[in-house]
């Protein structure tokens, strides 16, 4: 409905922007670490991965099963902010932050360039209005050695 999928590319009209990640190198069977910087438009906040209210949409980063064997995601510590529309403080990100993610390359992978596809989902608001949840596609080039 209002949700949208977009490829990651900086746009000033977005509440959040995630620059396309640079190519990384990883050996077969190893786990690569990638840090994704996220810019938050001033005046906006975005729900953390652990919002405290059931009705709020959490931030998520997922990676497609192939060509990544397994992965983990580490979000930074969120801020606790009180807004006029909430009775309790909310778990949010209000400033630029980074997400760390670890991706394991299968031992059986063929050497060469692969593309890991991730989906970054978030929902942002100001203290007066909310934007619809959005899913941004992250394309991470991995040079397998």
């Amino acid at each position, binding site marked *: 409905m209002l949700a949208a999928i977009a490829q990651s590319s900086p746009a000033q009209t977005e509440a959040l922007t995630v620059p396309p990640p640079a190519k990384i190198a990883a050996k077969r069977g190893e786990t690569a670490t990638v840090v994704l910087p996220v810019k938050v438009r001033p005046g906006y906040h975005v729900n953390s991965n652990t919002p405290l209210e059931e009705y709020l949409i959490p931030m998520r980063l997922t990676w497609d099963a192939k060509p990544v064997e397994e992965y983990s995601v580490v979000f930074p510590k969120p801020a606790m902010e009180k807004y006029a529309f909430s009775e309790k403080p909310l778990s949010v990100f209000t400033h630029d932050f980074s997400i760390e993610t670890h991706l394991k390359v299968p031992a059986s992978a063929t050497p060469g360039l692969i593309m890991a596809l991730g989906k970054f989902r978030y929902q942002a608001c100001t203290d*007066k209005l909310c934007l619809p949840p959005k899913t941004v596609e992250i394309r991470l080039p991995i040079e397998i050695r």
Partner: protein
Amino acid sequence: MKRFCGAVLTITAAALIAASCGPTTTQAKHEVKPLASRKKAPEFQLKDADGKVVKLSDYKGKIVLLNFWATWCGPCKIEIPWFIDFETKYRDQGFAVIGVAMDDDGWEVVRPYIRDKNVNYRTLLGDETVAQSYGGVDSLPTSFVLDREGRIASVHVGLVSKSEYQNDIEKLLEQAPRAGDAGGNRPIVARAD
């Protein structure tokens, strides 16, 4: 190319609605638009919680507060008790609130939410087509106050004060009392400002 054209159409539609609906920001000084500059609200057909198809034109003759909202929208939550009050207070004067929920998860999340909030007005499940016809509705809450002829008298984007809605509603009620009310059994005709 198709996607690009779609985007252009979307932006154009949003610009047209914004242009025709007047002030659309929470910061702008807000007033009910003069009769001559009101545009017809786009017709729609959406389903309510019982699966009944509801058309906007079913409400012709009523002053309507058309509120686009979602369960994940914190500021929307603040307005709901106001709209419940308005529905109670003005219903007998030919006024109605219509909530249009824009949740992707549909009735599964909307139904328990409106039950929990004791919403006493009709809620419909919105879709992208209706949102686009109203300019995209990129921010929630977005509300349109319609006169008895189904024309857009005011637009509010984002959380505004309860009194702003109340002023709009009361001005429209004053401009066009319901037939049979104080002014007698006369046709419903909005007076020019």
